[in-house]
């Protein structure tokens, strides 16, 4: 009998040990996946925050620029930079033939002419002089310099020719290639040229969408939650509403996109591809999330507080507004932020309402066409150029940073302002 009990005891200990082991390995697995995921994104994406510049001597030849003596600002603005731009690239190899000159030109970004022009606009005294100008390297050379480009491929399978590589290597050897922090990634809108593409448009698009979403979803959801929780009679009809709010939270986001397309764009004729439409669509999605969070935090306010207020002769409305709602606000707000974070990562509904369009301007209001961060990731991930690979990861990093900040904020609100009940 005693032995039997001992066996049982051992069995119990072993069972608990096994269970702990399973739990620990589950957590280990989850952490492992997360680490791999983050490592992959960071290792691919960190290089996008650096940009490669070629330092090229440019001679600001007044004659080639068709500039008169003592040109005014407008003259400099309107001058022809194409020839001096071409010439400064061609001069990198004095023995180059016409084909090679063409290749030399393609070593820098498509808009190198503009960069030369800006240099002169900043300092008009450069006319007639030679200055070493920083020109954005083409996305392929950018990738070569970052070591992301397979140089050992046969030449006909590469977008960078042997000749370009030879000149580039000479420039590197002479210290004429430099890597700097990529400001334009944050200040430029999208571009077909990977080296110029930035997230400014999609970032602003996301912010505007989220603001529109917040301004619509928050008041509607909070009012709905307060009414349902504090005022509505509990009957079959309100049960039915409750079930359907939960259903709404489970509707796939693309369905909301279709709704936005069919109602907002087709019937109300709102402007396509704008954060306004995107925000309204996202607010439909966020609505149930906020309602559920707000109701949960209203429910969490102890009934004794309501009774205390009512017994003091506060009306139902006063009880709700003076006590219940303020006490439930931390929970409601953190639920709202989590709902918005969800909306921020939403792609499918935005694609349907046209926020997937190529937008190379930075939106100034919710009525201007814009992309959004997740859609930008989608657009770039579809592009063929090697330069976009790192941009995709970099954009994911920005989006994740945004999300983590929001969730952190939600946590802070919850911990700092939530009342502890005695």
């Amino acid at each position, binding site marked *: 009998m005693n032995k039997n009990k001992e066996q049982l005891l051992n069995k119990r200990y072993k069972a608990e040990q096994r269970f702990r082991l399973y739990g620990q390995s589950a957590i280990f697995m989850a952490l492992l996946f997360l680490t791999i995921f983050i490592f992959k994104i960071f290792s691919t994406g960190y290089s996008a925050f650096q940009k490669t510049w070629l330092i090229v001597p440019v001679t600001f030849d007044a004659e080639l620029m068709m500039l008169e003596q003592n040109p005014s600002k407008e003259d400099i603005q309107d001058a022809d930079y194409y020839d001096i731009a071409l010439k400064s690239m061609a001069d990198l190899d004095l023995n180059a033939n016409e084909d090679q000159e063409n290749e030399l030109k393609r070593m820098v970004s498509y808009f190198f002419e503009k960069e030369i022009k800006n240099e002169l606009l900043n300092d008009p005294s450069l006319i007639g002089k030679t200055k070493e100008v920083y020109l954005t390297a083409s996305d392929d050379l950018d990738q070569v310099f970052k070591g992301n480009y397979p140089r050992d491929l046969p030449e006909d399978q590469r977008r960078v020719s042997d000749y370009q590589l030879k000149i580039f290597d000479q420039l590197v050897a002479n210290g004429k290639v430099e890597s700097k922090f990529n400001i334009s990634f944050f200040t430029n809108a999208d571009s077909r040229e990977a080296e110029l593409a930035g997230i400014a448009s999609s970032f602003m698009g996301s912010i505007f969408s989220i603001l529109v979403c917040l301004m619509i979803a928050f008041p509607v959801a909070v009012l709905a939650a307060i009414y349902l929780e504090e005022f509505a009679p509990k009957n079959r009809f309100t049960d039915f509403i409750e079930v359907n709010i939960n259903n709404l939270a489970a509707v796939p986001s693309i369905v909301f996109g279709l709704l936005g397309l069919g109602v907002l764009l087709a019937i109300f004729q709102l402007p396509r591809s704008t954060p306004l439409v995107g925000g309204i669509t996202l607010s439909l999605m966020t609505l149930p999330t906020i309602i559920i969070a707000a109701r949960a935090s209203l429910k969490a306010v102890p009934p*004794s507080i309501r009774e205390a207020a009512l*017994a*003091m*002769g506060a009306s139902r409305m006063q009880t709700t507004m003076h006590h219940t709602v303020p*006490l439930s606000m931390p929970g409601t707000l953190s639920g709202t932020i989590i709902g918005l974070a969800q909306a921020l990562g939403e792609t499918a509904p935005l694609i349907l309402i046209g926020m997937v369009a190529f937008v190379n301007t930075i939106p100034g209001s919710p009525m201007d066409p814009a992309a959004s961060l997740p859609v930008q990731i989608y657009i770039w991930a579809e592009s063929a150029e090697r330069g976009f690979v790192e941009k995709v990861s970099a954009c994911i990093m920005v989006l994740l940073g945004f999300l983590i900040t929001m969730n952190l904020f939600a946590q802070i609100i919850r911990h700092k302002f939530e009342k502890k009940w005695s």
Partner: protein
Amino acid sequence: MRKNGVKMIKIKAKDVDVFYGKKQALFNISLDIEENQVTALIGPSGCGKSTFLRCLNRMNDVIDICSVKGEILINDFNINDKSCDVVRLREKIGMVFQKPNPFPKTLYENVSYGPTIHGMAQSKQEMDEIVETSLKKAALWEEVKDRLHEPGTGLSGGQQQRLCIARAISVRPEVILMDEPCSALDPIATAQIEELIDELKKEHTIIIVTHSMAQAARVSQNTGFFHLGQLIEHGSTDKIFKNPDNTKTQDYITGRFG
């Protein structure tokens, strides 16, 4: 209180029935409550004494499935009448609950809440006075006068309950309902509250629900004994405790059941 030897009746309950859904919780309760006296309601758990107490300021309205029938006259006005406004009613009838439930706000805000919503103070000064007198009457002033702007939830249990009493009397109610106000407190805090009750009855009519027979005997002048939703017996506390008419009352107060 007796005027010229006549009992002044503050509250008159006539044939009160209370239902929770289909279940009847109170049967035909008729009870007169004397003005400026302490009336204790005693009885075993679930006998309906708290339910009856909550009828007096219509707190049962909060419970959807609860319905109250019968007449409850306060100053000869039927509070179950449709024309009765519960906000006005509860201004006149304060309540102190079983568990101390101060608002998670400062002490000052706790006491000033009632006067604020009922517009009883014209100025900050007047409000300060109300807060001070209420806290003094609740025998809490000396302990908290230096920390009026600290949260009320930071007080001890007994202090919290006295804060709740201060909150209740801040609107100068005619009647104070107390639902087992000492059940969550230690003996010292209980003694303080009991002393306070004795003091408060000079200005207010008090109805107290209690589980403690000793407490009922100590603080009350009248006692009502409830059992299974019925008012078995009521009368002066002396009589109920020394010479009850009903054997059930006798059994309960001598501790044979309950």
